[in-house]
């Protein structure tokens, strides 16, 4: 067990690097959760708590000279040390985020494949713009919708389960969060009921309570994040039902990749997360129109597409619709 913790301790920065990479696709609450996790739990564990429990076995003294009695009594009262439980908890709690990372990587991979196939077919785009496209693919932030929403929500549920499970395990194994000063033990080979004294019980209680509090804060953050995601999805689904009011009057034309539309025509954009728009033509003329759309009574929703009538001679390039 100590070896496991030694190795996990060696790779805390590695884990931090991995999770930080996924951070870009998290919500703000997710980013706050990551900071709380690393600063108030991992850091406190490595810097402070490990030295408090450092001498837990060597300073566990029993009031007897009988060889083996101390070992046996220590083993009876401390089946798994707090430090190891916390190491495991932190490792398990961080892992669901890697699910999200895998999903994002899979999406990027399939988008990249589609990009390369599409350009091969039409032959319209030059190599330079293709490279730019690939770059944006790597650095873009995926909106949390569709399958990614489910992955993210599942990862949150798993995090909550692991946190709750480990806290419960700690509570059950140690009968609460307080460390007693004295335990009484009569396991063989102890000759009779002997008093055994635990080292630094008050300091250990302080740190146990601190880590339990930090864990509860993380649980609250995760629940809030889950509630936020559910609320966002519900409102999105609720508004989608009123999309029919939003059908454009002109006939819609689905444009293929790389087609030019000369001025006065129409172009299709789609609305990304919040106020982010994802059509790749922009002009100063377009901004007032979009402002008007945003302020209008028609709400614009994530991944909805709509028609923009171009006011002037603006050649534009249209790109594939994102799902």
């Amino acid at each position, binding site marked *: 067990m100590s070896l496991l913790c030694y190795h996990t301790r060696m790779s*805390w*920065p590695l884990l*931090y690097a991995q999770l930080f990479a996924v951070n870009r696709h998290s919500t*703000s609450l997710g*980013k*706050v959760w990551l*900071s709380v996790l*690393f*600063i*108030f739990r*991992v*850091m*406190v564990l*490595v*810097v*402070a708590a490990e*030295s*408090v429990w450092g*001498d837990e076995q060597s*300073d566990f*003294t*029993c*009031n*007897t000279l009988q060889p083996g009695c101390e070992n046996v009594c220590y083993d009876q009262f401390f089946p798994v040390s707090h430090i190891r439980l916390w190491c495991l908890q932190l490792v398990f709690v961080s892992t669901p985020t890697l699910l999200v990372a895998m999903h994002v990587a899979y999406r990027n991979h399939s988008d990249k494949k589609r990009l390369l196939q599409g350009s091969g077919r039409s032959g319209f785009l030059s190599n330079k713009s293709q490279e730019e496209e690939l*770059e944006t693919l790597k650095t873009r932030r995926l909106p949390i919708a569709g399958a990614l929403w489910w992955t993210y929500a599942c990862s949150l549920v798993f995090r909550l389960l692991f946190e709750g499970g480990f806290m419960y395990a700690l509570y059950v194994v140690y009968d609460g969060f307080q460390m007693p*000063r*004295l335990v009484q033990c009569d396991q063989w080979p102890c000759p009779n009921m002997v*008093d*055994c*004294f*635990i*080292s*630094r*019980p*008050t*300091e250990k209680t*302080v*740190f146990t309570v*601190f880590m339990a509090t930090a864990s509860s804060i993380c649980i609250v953050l995760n629940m809030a994040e889950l509630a936020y995601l559910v609320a966002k999805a519900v409102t999105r689904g609720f508004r989608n039902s009123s999309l029919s009011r939003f059908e454009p009057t002109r006939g819609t034309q689905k444009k293929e990749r790389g087609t030019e539309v000369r001025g006065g025509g129409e172009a299709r954009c789609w609305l990304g997360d919040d*106020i*982010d*728009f994802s059509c*790749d033509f*922009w*002009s*100063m003329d*377009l*901004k007032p129109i*979009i402002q008007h759309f945003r302020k209008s009574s028609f709400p614009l929703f994530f991944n909805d597409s709509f028609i923009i009538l171009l006011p002037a001679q603006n050649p534009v390039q249209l790109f594939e619709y994102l799902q």
Partner: protein
Amino acid sequence: MNWATFYAVISGVNKHSTGIGRIWLSVLFIFRILVLVVAAESVWGDEKSGFTCNTQQPGCNSVCYDHFFPISHIRLWALQLILVSTPALLVAMHVAHRRHVDKRVYRLSGRTNPKELEQIKTQKMKITGALWWTYVISLLFRVVFEVIFMYVFYMIYPGYKMIRLVKCDSYPCPNTVDCFVSRPTEKTVFTVFMLAVSGVCILLNIAEVVFLVVKACSKHLHGVGESTMGAWIQHKLCSF
């Protein structure tokens, strides 16, 4: 995650601090964290093994140690340093949020030059508007945490002095036994040192608050007559 990684995380905030803020950060890292890791931890390293009571009763040592040292100085300082550094992350989060909004507005206004977008990422934020408030609140939190920890130290270890000898009669000690603390003078020296540096940090934080308030007031007084286009645009951008 150790002090080195923590240093990397916290010093990222350095770019958006005032001059006094940077001095504070240097004092924090050099005179507190470095001294803690390099010197203080070895002074307190044998605090338990070197704590000896004048008895052979098993368990008396542990119990008396626990009675007089509920929480060790080193752990308290580690917690203090972590808590005192964290408000700076509030500022970092606010700056990241502002950058995000700026980038979106930039993209919306029709400019998609990746170089300019990169520039937004690296340019220094001015401490104005809502960021000013976040910064000042983070400074006040720092001061409050410092003071709270100094008070806790005073409560647990009255007078900040480490005594050479303590008398203890908790069970299972058979009677009132003399217990001897290891390296009391060295511990007192380091406690006083850390206390002094903590005081210096409090003064730096208060000076920074005063500086920011004075700067804001003077800007308000001087800039009342001017309403430049730049300021209007800034205001519009901030309203996103």
